[in-house]
């Protein structure tokens, strides 16, 4: 290999490294991160994006360069050099990806643990906890009541960092039904169609489903957990940025799946407290008003068609204590 060749290879390698690092770190592909857990996930994404950009440039570069440089010359009917392999190179390109995926795996494991994914309280699953009950209430919809037990759950539990800080999490029960989320605040008894949480306090959601499988997803928190009828799941996060974020059902749950959306509102402690007070006053009068307030706009357009009306809402189980 000549010096000129070596220089070319080194400068190409440096160029690929710089572009990959730059794109891996500065791409604005993910939405704003509203919790420390989300920032940790973004860290993995940036690393993976850096590696992926590097490999992408390398291999696409080889393909394009080959297509130009190694084109058959007109009239040349001979074959190329009979190179059948090279054990050293093959070992290198087996070893490098192995090391890369090992690093990504260990990093992912670490982040997942920090998110509370390996919290024994939340990450075990011993199957359906109880036979769900069949109710023959509303318009042929097979309403199910998922049973709640105290500790068997799956999903993301308490993060080790929060546990050591001894913060009391805000506990909210989430019931997902076609096509809405119902949030029940255990302490105050408030039932809402929107999720309000105070900034800075850990939140623990207990997620159940009332009919089919749904999923609770907040892109800005990078957390998602399926709500499975007959099982209880749990996720935890610590919102650190005030704002309104979408809560999206991510598991196909029927024709109006796309309209199953609501808001997560992360607000200051005072704003949260006054919202709770307001809800308590309103709900001491009637339950269904509060639920109706929470109905999100995209769904309203279809409410009639789906068969959601005041009567349906009244028949919903208040909450399962």
């Amino acid at each position: 290999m000549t010096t000129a060749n070596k220089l070319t290879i080194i400068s190409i390698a440096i160029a690929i490294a710089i572009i990959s690092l730059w794109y891996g770190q500065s791409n604005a592909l993910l939405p704003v991160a509203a919790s420390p857990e989300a920032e940790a996930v973004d860290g993995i994404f940036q690393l993976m994006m850096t590696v992926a950009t590097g490999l992408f440039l390398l291999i696409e570069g080889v393909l394009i360069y080959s297509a130009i440089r190694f084109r058959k010359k007109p009239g040349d009917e001979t074959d190329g050099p009979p190179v059948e392999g090279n054990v050293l190179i093959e070992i290198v390109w087996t070893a490098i990806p192995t090391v890369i995926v090992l690093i990504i795996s260990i990093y992912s494991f670490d982040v997942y643990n920090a998110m509370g994914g390996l919290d024994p309280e939340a990450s075990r699953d011993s199957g359906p906890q109880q036979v769900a009950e069949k109710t023959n209430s509303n318009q042929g919809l097979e309403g199910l009541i998922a049973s709640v037990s105290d500790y068997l759950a799956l999903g993301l539990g308490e993060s080790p960092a929060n546990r050591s800080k001894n913060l009391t999490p805000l506990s909210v029960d989430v019931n997902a039904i076609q096509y809405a989320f119902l949030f029940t605040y255990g302490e105050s008894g408030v039932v809402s169609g929107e999720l309000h949480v105070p900034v800075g306090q850990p939140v623990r959601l207990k997620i159940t489903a009332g009919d089919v499988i749904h999923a609770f997803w907040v892109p800005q928190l990078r957390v998602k957990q399926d709500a499975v009828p007959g099982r209880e799941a749990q996720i935890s996060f610590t919102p650190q940025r005030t704002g309104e974020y979408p809560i999206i059902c991510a598991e196909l749950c029927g024709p109006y799946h796309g309209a199953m959306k609501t808001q997560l509102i992360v607000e200051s402690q005072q704003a949260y407290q006054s919202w709770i007070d307001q809800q308590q006053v309103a709900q001491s009068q009637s339950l269904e008003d509060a639920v109706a307030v929470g109905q999100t706009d995209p769904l309203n357009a279809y409410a009639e068609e789906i068969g959601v009306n005041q009567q349906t809402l009244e028949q919903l189980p208040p909450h399962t204590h």
Partner: protein
Amino acid sequence: MTTSAETSLSEQEEKRTWTDYFTFNTDHKVIGIQYLVTSFIFYLIGGALAAGIRTELATPESDFVSPELYNQMFTVHGTVMIFLWIVPAGAGLANYLIPLMIGAKDMAFPRLNAVAFWMIPPGGLLLMASFFVGAPQAGWTSYPPLSLMTGKAGEEIWILSILILGTSSILGAINFLATILKMRMPEMGFFDLPLFCWSMLATAAMILISTPVLAAALIMLSFDLIVDTSFFDPTGGGDPIVYQHMFWFYSHPAVYIMILPFFGAISEILPVHARKPIFGYRAIAFSSLAISFLGLIVWAHHMFSSGTPGWLRMFFMATTMIIAVPTGIKVFGWCATIWGGKIRLNSAMLFGMGFVSAFLIGGLSGVMLASVPFDIHVHDSYFIVAHLHYVLFGGSVLGLFAAIYHWFPKMTGKYLNETWGRIHFVLTFIGLNLTFLPMHQLGLEGMNRRIAIYDAEFQTLNIICTIGSYILAVSTFPFLINLVWSVLKGKKAGANPWKALTLEWQTASPPLIENFEEEPVLWSGPYDYGVDVSEENDQSVQELLSDVKADMS
């Protein structure tokens, strides 16, 4: 002596007529083409459904079709593209090529082979018929309890159709395995096998291990649906998560069942048109087996946000990450194969290199998805839609087109037209990237999949995707025109137009009814390009071949 010679001569002069292709014929070449043509028709149907889906998604509101019909469309689109296009097209290619590549007269079980094919049209028509009673609308994954509650008639038809198609796939796999293991010409050892045969060994093993599990899941789902059992129905104590495990125990291997045959095809096509031996034959052969094994123990990575405990998520993250290694070996091996070659950049090669470049994107996003914390964010979002289409369209479909351009001269004795081929490639490649690249961003930003109604902020990117999908729809026409025109009036191709070394090129194009005029000779390895030239005074492959023929007679 003379009489037997005469009878064998008259047998050889027996000609294929076009009517043979509409009958229960046991010739593997007829069956192969039957598979390819049938699956291509379903590709057009699936493609039309895709265009409908993208038209709906051009606007954030649900306005082109009703939400129910939209769900039916993506359910049938997914089912058709997987079970009626890519899987049978791979089986068709394998049927056509395996006996020719190993110097056999036919498959091990010719009648079984015909039975396997003839299950496809009824299975496909049954699925199409479901539109008359309300097609299934629970997605191609058909998760209970949703699948038990929506469109029961359509759902049952879907189950029966998949059971028929799955059985066909199992019968085909038995045949591939038996043929490759037992019907090779005597002097052909395992390491003389073309890599396509290696990849079909791996594919057949996966089909045989995993497909019965899907059948079991579907039969239980069917009981839940018809006779109100509660295998998966939580109202009776059933467990919907068990269905997901059983479903993905097949459906993740299914991805490899759909891509491995085309890994094999690409390993054939690149050396021929780069005029160089495949780089690292054994590494590529064994990586197929490694993918086959690892592919069976990664299924729960489809369930990272479902009912799975933490330790299980970690285990499946590790296995999924490892599968990147054998896949990487293949991609690097292909790049090294074309590096320094004398590349004939014809349509087959364009699609072959396009395959590597597009599959790479699907592979890289696949490694990202293995990471549990990241997957929890993008699971069931458009990032997944982008990933799976780069693997199955950028990978399998481009690989299939490469294979058709490469083996069409063998199948018909005519070349496909190069100009139309290039137009087809350019339109397909642009359309593919325009349709699926923006979907990565949509998913990362928070657009979930399987929705007819979406947030207006995502509309710009969705319109780009829709335009891309229309380009893909248009790209089919040059291909169709090319096929018809070339079959009728294409330039004649000789026995070995690409000067390739694998055995299928040692017989006439199209091959005789029992494949080889005389016993084929294994006079070189499958990829010994350039080897003989350097040793034997610039003799071309063609000359060498005629020398060998002369020696024989």
